[in-house]
């Protein structure tokens, strides 16, 4: 029984608890200690991850750390880390959209950070699960805190509305998942992945229905059509760091879940599920891309973008599992970097909650660095070489193309082309639109702009040297 490989998981848990304790004790300080503690913990987790990279746990039938899992955990942890940076100072001045209306004392970030950490712990569990119960719990742990996070600014109507919608839709997804899991259990006779894999080798309708329900339930997390409709509303209503986390961390968790099942025990089912994957992928791309065209709210815009991206991600499931998994992971890094970059650029337009695309107006003059980051982010998301987004999509397309799904790839490429239309809009605001009077933006400083440059480098360099994950 080797606990060493789960060191990151334990560290994550410990950090979460430590933050809670610190939050309870450091009442009078404005809670910065919590944020710092959380960040330090996250860095430790990152270090531990790298340290334990090559180790593989054994012994538990429920929980296993695999080499593949390392990359997933890395994604989750990085998403967490950047979300923490993004949230730094976010709650200092009160809830953002209502901040102007009510003078609200700063809200404690302790709970926020703890919830984030628990959420990521859930994701860790998700990718380590070797049986359905743990899997389910991981999924729930990765989802439940999000309600609270989305509604964290409980004085803001939008935030609470977002939380409610998220809660109800997630509840429905949970119900679907549960029903699906029960059918899988029924079909396999036990909960372990191995048993499930055995059952999947001789498909039954029970199994297929179960898989489909799980597809739906997990699809909710990756905002996949037909369970994508919560995303725009929740993204718009939730606090910006939470939106960022939803679009990167949570989506990654959903994909991890999808990969855990469909590249794992249900691999044998995937071939038969091709139409489902293909149609859901195409529908997501179309819904996301067309929906995004008319959006003026930056976060709502990103929601549609993330719906469309979910569609591309799904292409990974239409081909060979090893290649699919690797393409999925790579594209997640790429997508994550670009999406976070967008949110960092958004934050650079001011500390307040920013609603409209107009926030980017004239950014290229005032903050060329942030504008460049935005540009790179948008073009990367659109999949334009030489940025990382291209290679990400290229690998996804390759997976489908290798299986000669020409029509699917054609539609995906066409959608990718179409997507540039709206991805250009923030760029247009930042670079092209005529300046309007605005109070000068606050300076970011070195520490403030460091993550921007890191992300920018990631968006560029990942596109040029895609040396992982192998």
């Amino acid at each position, binding site marked *: 029984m080797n606990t060493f490989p789960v060191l990151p998981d334990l560290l994550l848990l410990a950090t979460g608890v430590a933050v809670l304790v610190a939050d309870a004790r450091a009442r009078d300080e404005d809670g910065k200690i919590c944020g710092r503690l959380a960040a330090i913990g996250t860095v430790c987790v990152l270090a531990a991850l790298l340290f334990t990279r090559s180790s593989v746990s054994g012994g538990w039938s429920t929980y296993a750390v695999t080499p593949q899992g390392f990359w997933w955990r890395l994604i989750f942890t990085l998403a967490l880390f950047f979300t923490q940076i993004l949230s730094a100072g976010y709650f200092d001045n009160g809830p953002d959209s209502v901040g102007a209306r009510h003078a609200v004392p700063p809200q404690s970030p302790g709970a926020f950070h703890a919830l984030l950490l628990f959420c990521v712990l859930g994701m860790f569990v998700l990718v380590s699960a070797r049986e*359905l*119960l743990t899997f*389910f*719990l991981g999924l*729930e742990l990765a989802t*439940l805190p999000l*309600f*609270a996070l989305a*509604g964290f600014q*409980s*004085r803001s*109507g*939008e935030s*609470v*509305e*977002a*939380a*409610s*919608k998220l*809660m*109800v839709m997630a*509840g*429905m997804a*949970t*119900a679907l998942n*549960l*029903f699906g*899991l*029960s*059918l899988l*259990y*029924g079909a*396999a*006779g*036990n*909960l372990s992945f191995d*048993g499930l894999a055995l059952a999947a080798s001789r498909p039954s309708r029970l199994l297929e229905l179960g898989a489909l329900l799980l597809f739906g339930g997990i699809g909710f997390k990756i905002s996949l059509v037909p369970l994508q409709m919560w995303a*725009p*509303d*929740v993204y*718009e*209503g939730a606090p910006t760091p939470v939106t960022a986390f939803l679009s990167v961390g949570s989506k990654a968790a959903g994909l991890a879940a999808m990969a855990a099942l469909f590249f794992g025990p249900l691999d044998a089912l995937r071939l038969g599920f091709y139409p489902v994957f293909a149609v859901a992928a195409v529908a997501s791309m179309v819904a996301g891309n067309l929906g995004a065209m*008319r*959006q003026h709210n930056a976060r*709502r815009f990103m929601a549609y973008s993330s719906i469309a991206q979910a569609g591309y991600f799904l292409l990974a499931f239409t081909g060979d599992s090893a290649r699919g998994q690797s393409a999925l992971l790579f594209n997640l890094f790429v997508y994550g970097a670009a999406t976070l970059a967008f949110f960092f650029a958004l934050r650079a337009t001011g500390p307040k909650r920013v609603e409209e695309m107009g926030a980017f107006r004239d950014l290229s003059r005032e903050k060329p660095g942030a504008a460049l980051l935005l540009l790179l982010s948008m073009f990367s998301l659109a999949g334009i070489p030489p940025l990382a987004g291209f290679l990400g999509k290229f690998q996804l397309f390759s997976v489908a193309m290798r299986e000669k799904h020409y029509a699917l790839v054609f539609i995906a490429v066409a959608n990718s082309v179409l997507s540039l239309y709206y991805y250009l809009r923030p760029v247009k605001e930042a670079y092209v639109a005529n300046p309007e009077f605005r109070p000068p933006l606050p300076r970011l400083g070195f520490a403030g702009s460091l993550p921007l440059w890191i992300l920018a480098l990631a968006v560029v360099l990942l596109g040029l040297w895609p040396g992982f994950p192998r």
Partner: protein
Amino acid sequence: MNLPACLLLSSALFALGVYGLLTRRNLIAVLMSLELMVNAALINFTAFARFGGGDATAGAVFPLFVMAVTAGEMALALGIVMALQRWRSRIDVDELNRLHG
């Protein structure tokens, strides 16, 4: 009493939950409908445990965890309902439409 009957029952319960989910205007009622759906899944687990003949204990354990999770979910829901209550006099889901488009 056999497996198909149980599955039929759970399906019907789930469908009733869906109906409630889609029609109830009060958020708490909607949550109650969700509970029905979850309960349907629990019936499934138990039925499969009873009639499936595989690892029956696992099927009995699962509902216990689900209940715990649901409890947590309800706690959170209560918090959100309270927040919503503060903001809206009535927790009518049809009025939760400020975010749209």
